[in-house]
């Protein structure tokens, strides 16, 4: 799993590349820790190149979402594939995020 964070006009864009399984989620949790603190703006989670997500990965999404909610920020999930979409469906995440 590779994570790229870019600041654009839209906001902060976090690009996930590869499998966000449990070990990867543990690493990502540390990488994304600063984002949890600074969630007042718009955060775009770009999942175009993400092939797999586990509940640990979902947890990161949810934490970010909660943090943004508190600080008046916004989280957008972008470009999820069918497999991930079905996971979002099963967990009710489709309703929690703005999905583009």
């Amino acid at each position: 799993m590779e994570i790229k964070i870019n600041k654009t006009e839209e906001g902060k864009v976090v690009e996930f590349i590869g499998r966000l399984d449990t070990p990867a989620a543990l690493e990502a949790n540390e990488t994304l820790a600063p984002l949890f603190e600074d969630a007042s703006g718009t955060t775009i989670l770009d999942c175009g190149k993400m092939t797999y997500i586990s509940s640990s990965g979902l947890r990161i999404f949810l934490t970010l979402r909660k943090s943004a909610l508190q600080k008046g920020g916004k989280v957008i999930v972008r470009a999820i594939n069918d497999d991930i979409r079905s996971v979002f469906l099963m967990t009710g995440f489709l309703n929690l995020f703005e999905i583009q």
Partner: protein
Amino acid sequence: MKLQTPILRKSVWTSILLVLFAALIIEVSSLFQYFYAVKGLKSEASLRAEGELENTRIQISDVLDQAEAALRNNMWIARWCLDHPDSLEAVTRRIIEDNPVVVGSTVALVPGYYKRRPLMAPYSYRNLDTGEILTKTLATPEYDYPSHEWFTKALFRERGYWSEPYVDEGGGEMLMTTFSMPVRDDSGKTAAILTVDVSLDWLTSMFGDVKVYPSAFSVMASSSGRIMVCPVQSFVMKKTIQDIIDSLEDKATFDTLSRDMLSGKSGSRLVRYKGKKEYVYFAPVERTGWSMSIVIPEDEIYSDIRKLGWRVRLLQILGLCMLFFIIRFVARNQLKYNNLTEKKNLMENELKIASGIQMSMIPSSDASFPERHDIDMAAVLVPAREVGGDLYDYFIREGKLFFCIGDVSGKGVPASLVMAVTRSLFRTVSSHEDSPGRIVEIINNSMSEMNRNSMFVTFFCGILDLATGQLRYCNAGHNVPVFMSDTKHMLDVVPNLPLGIVSDMSFQEQETMLYEDDAIFLYTDGLTEAENANHELFGEKRMLSVLSTRRDAKSQIEAMEKNVTDFVGQAPQSDDLTMLFIHYLNNDLPRSNVPHIVLRNEIGQISRLAGFVEEVAEKNGINPGTASAINLALEEIVTNVIMYAYPKGTEGFAEIKVRTRDDAIDFEVSDSGKPFDPTAMPEVDITLGAEDRKIGGLGIHLARKIMDAISYERKNDKNILTLTKMLNNHGNQNQQN
């Protein structure tokens, strides 16, 4: 320590009994000796006393003979002189002059024999001081010789008469005795009595001084019982034996004694005098009727043996004391020895048990994978003693054969303990490490830390990938194994140091390939250094010649064992002997066993799941979308096990077994952690908004959603969760709901 006291007590009692027995024997023999010695001393005392008595008797007789002879020799002159009375005085003088034993002599005429001289008794005597011979007459009115015993008794005794001893008042208080004989005239009428006086003073000094024993003394009494010789000078001639007896307590014994003595008998008698026992030896002088006796205190007869007796007894006691200590020492050693034998038997039993335990630590021949077609192996371990320091081990994990062989320095129990530790470490470390170098390093570090006795282990560890034939190995100072393909040669190994010497050392790992029918032969120095009676070693050359290519492992090992046994012969086995033969077959037969994967409780292990699921999916024709979902469900379940089933810091596993049915596939996830039933977890509410959503619980929710059925059971201390996925054309139907 506990056994010490009974041994002491036991040895003391044994010793006392033996010493008492010895004392009894010694005492009995001493009594016999004493008895015979007493008898000997008694007879010696008798001999000495009787000898003295006889000697005295002879001397007395000699004097009396001389006196009698002097008288008889002058009888004819006296008879002749009867006609010349005035010459009678000369006769007496002549007798004295001629006979030194005679101190006085008289011719006393029978009153009235001469008409003119009614009494006539000229008497000559020797003045003992000057030696001058003096003469006087006994015919005085004061003396009145015809009334004296020596005169009256002799009148009727033709053979003469010895008078009672008497003290001569006239001439110097001498003890005297007189021999008198009648003198007949030609008509046969008794005319006079001729006498000779003999001094008995010499007798006092001679017999009185007889000292057969220091306190012995002599007594002589006349025929009337009057004391003649006696240590108490004042008794002489004043007292009789009867007088003395009257003053004694034990009168009866003395009565019979005096009767025997005075009646001329000889013999001996034991008497009691003033509380002491005394032996009285007595004998008569027949001619005069005197009785001689020697009195010897019994104490003195036996004093020597009594003194000796005490010394002997003292020596005996000392000897018995020494005997006691010697016996006790010996007995104690004997008992200790018995005790040691018991302990030895106990130890031997324990060693037998230990041997059994040790043998159970190494894989038995049944465990050498007879069901497998890719490997053929055999091993043997022969300890030189009950327990040994050699080890080998092997097992298959994830299609890889882990094996090792080792030799602990030294032999016997210490080596066996280190062997057990090494084997345990190998099992533990190799259950999760896949690198032989790493395995050896970890074992080495553990061993070095606890190695206080400077023992080391030569060790060879290998991992053979049964699918590919790749062999990775690491040698820690062990004998170089033999590599057998079309040829036989020693495996190329880096020697490295043995285990347990230096910690934190890195061990170089090596790699080679085994192809079908290749083999590796591992052994300990008990094989190459097996020694025969001539101190020749079995050696590598012999070993290599026994190994033959293209033979099964079991017969290779048996052939080697037979060869080395024949070579050693009667010589004792000097070292533990271990051999391990691994024959790689690589028969690519379809796997009959269930596909499965074992994951250690480290979160990184999750990454291995994807490949496994992919493989299973491919084989069962499951589409990638469903495979990914299955992967997710399994990941969630296994993550739970890894994170929560085992206490922090302990090792644990999660195993997944796959069973395929006609229309479904089962994944059985098992772990040995604490009991946990995920199916009993409450459903999460996925309709809640972001503020109210909880962070946890999603994993199990996902598994439930993805799988068609989930069942839990707790069996053999294991959590077993079976997840079932239906397999049909609409396999991903559920996940769309």
